[in-house]
């Protein structure tokens, strides 16, 4: 297939073809959008388990006496609350409260942290991190190219992964992880109970060269439980149903984490100052003007990124950030950044789809929650 060879590739690129992947340009990376079908893969993750190559994600290692203090000034959440082997979802802001990126902070040791950032933002984020790191006693290392990441997600994920390791996975709680784990002979894997699908599951971090071997071993171990390779198309519909933000859509330099509804990851009362704190406090005190709301399109049409949202009286009130035909709910759903007075559940509104105003209504999120 004619994919531009200038695109960046993960260590699994040569393996995709064997599994029938359709490879596309995804923000400068050649990545599989699907293997069999987005709907089928989505369903597999909701009912069995799916395996995703997410090695394009970036990793930055922060090490040293001042690592914790530095990170706490960089991000919105409070990393002093983390225990070793615990991960935390957080955001990184500009002074005006706009978002640089959303990320996971892994506390590896008291003076050693791993920051996991979005692929499209690796250079921007790392530059930003260096800029904020003037006086501290610590080192920052962009190790994105050395680390591969696989995500195994779905109700059968734990059972499948358990077949390949001696450690008791049931002891790893949500947003906890274990380090230096052997997975069927492969050494030094970080096993984290995290994910981006709304299902239980794990994310595995390890040396990139091991990726093709671990991919095959996992698929083999999961075959009888229905594990299937899944692409980024299903990852997107899964995360949207679970209302997980995607940088570039729900979050951007123009959208604050408070507006995007990830206030749970913004600790305005933490002791440490952090970049954007004053702006975010001001935003909270004066009240948000716009916020992210879930919408369901009740007329005929699918909301898509960038479509206008209009009130019942015809006033333009915002924009769709993400939308799709929900495979689990069989409904047309989306997230929209709209003025707060229209953001309450039950409010009727309209989405402009190809010059037509189509009926929609604000609904509670997440759209999908696992039982």
């Amino acid at each position: 297939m004619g994919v531009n060879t200038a695109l960046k590739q993960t260590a699994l690129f040569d393996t995709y073809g064997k599994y029938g992947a359709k490879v596309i340009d995804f923000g400068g990376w050649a990545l599989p959008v699907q293997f069999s079908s987005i709907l089928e893969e989505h369903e597999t993750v909701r009912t069995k388990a799916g395996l995703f190559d997410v090695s394009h994600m970036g990793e930055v290692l922060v090490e040293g006496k001042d690592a914790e203090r530095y990170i706490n000034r960089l991000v919105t959440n409070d990393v002093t609350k983390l225990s070793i082997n615990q991960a935390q979802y957080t955001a990184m802001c500009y002074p005006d409260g706009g978002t640089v990126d959303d990320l996971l902070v892994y506390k590896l040791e008291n003076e050693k942290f791993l920051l996991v950032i979005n692929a499209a933002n690796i250079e921007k984020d790392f530059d930003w991190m260096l800029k904020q790191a003037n006086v501290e006693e610590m080192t920052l290392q962009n190790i994105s190219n050395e680390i591969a990441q696989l995500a195994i997600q779905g109700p059968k994920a734990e059972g499948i992964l358990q077949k390949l390791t001696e450690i008791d996975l049931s002891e790893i709680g949500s947003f906890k992880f274990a380090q230096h784990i052997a997975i069927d002979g492969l050494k030094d894997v970080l096993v984290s109970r995290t994910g981006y699908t709304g299902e239980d599951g794990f994310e595995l971090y390890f040396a990139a060269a091991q990726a093709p071997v671990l991919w095959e071993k996992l698929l083999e171990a999961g075959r009888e439980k229905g594990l299937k390779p899944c692409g980024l198309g299903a990852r997107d519909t899964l995360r949207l149903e679970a209302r997980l933000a995607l940088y570039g859509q729900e979050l951007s330099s123009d959208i604050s984490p408070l507006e995007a509804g990830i206030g749970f990851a913004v600790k305005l009362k933490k002791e440490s100052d952090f970049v954007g704190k004053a702006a975010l406090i001001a935003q909270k005190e004066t009240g948000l003007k716009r916020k992210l709301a879930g919408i369901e399109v009740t007329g005929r049409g699918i909301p898509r990124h960038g479509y206008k949202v209009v009130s019942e009286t015809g006033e333009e009130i915002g924009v769709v950030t993400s939308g799709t035909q929900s495979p689990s709910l069989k409904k047309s759903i989306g997230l929209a950044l709209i003025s707060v007075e229209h953001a309450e559940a039950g409010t009727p509104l309209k989405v402009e789809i190809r010059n037509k105003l189509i009926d929609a209504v604000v609904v509670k999120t997440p759209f999908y929650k696992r039982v």
Partner: protein
Amino acid sequence: MTQATASLLYSKEHEWVLQLDGNRVRIGISDYAQKQLGDIVFVENPQVDDEVTADESMGTIESVKAVSEIYAPVSGTVVRVNEELEDAPEAINEYPFSKGWLAEVEMSSPEELETLLNEDEYLAFIKEGEE
């Protein structure tokens, strides 16, 4: 293997055209096109009596990921649309040449058919695009 059907004509936008009676044609998208789109979840067909113009949009098809235009392969008046697609757009993935047809058009300029590709030409055109 991309399936095609010998009696059909094709546009470079991957629509097929089946000649019915007189100047009436049935339009759909090719097997190659449905595979490229992936799971189709929404179809916006033109309405009966709409005028369509060759190479201009006559509707949209949405897969899970993307919105794609349907380009009219010929000009004319829409005389019938496949209403089944409203509730079962996946018919295009399953049966692109039969149950997944889109619309029927009474051609205003039947000579436009001469600009379309026959099956061999179409398959060669796809192959060229993949190289």
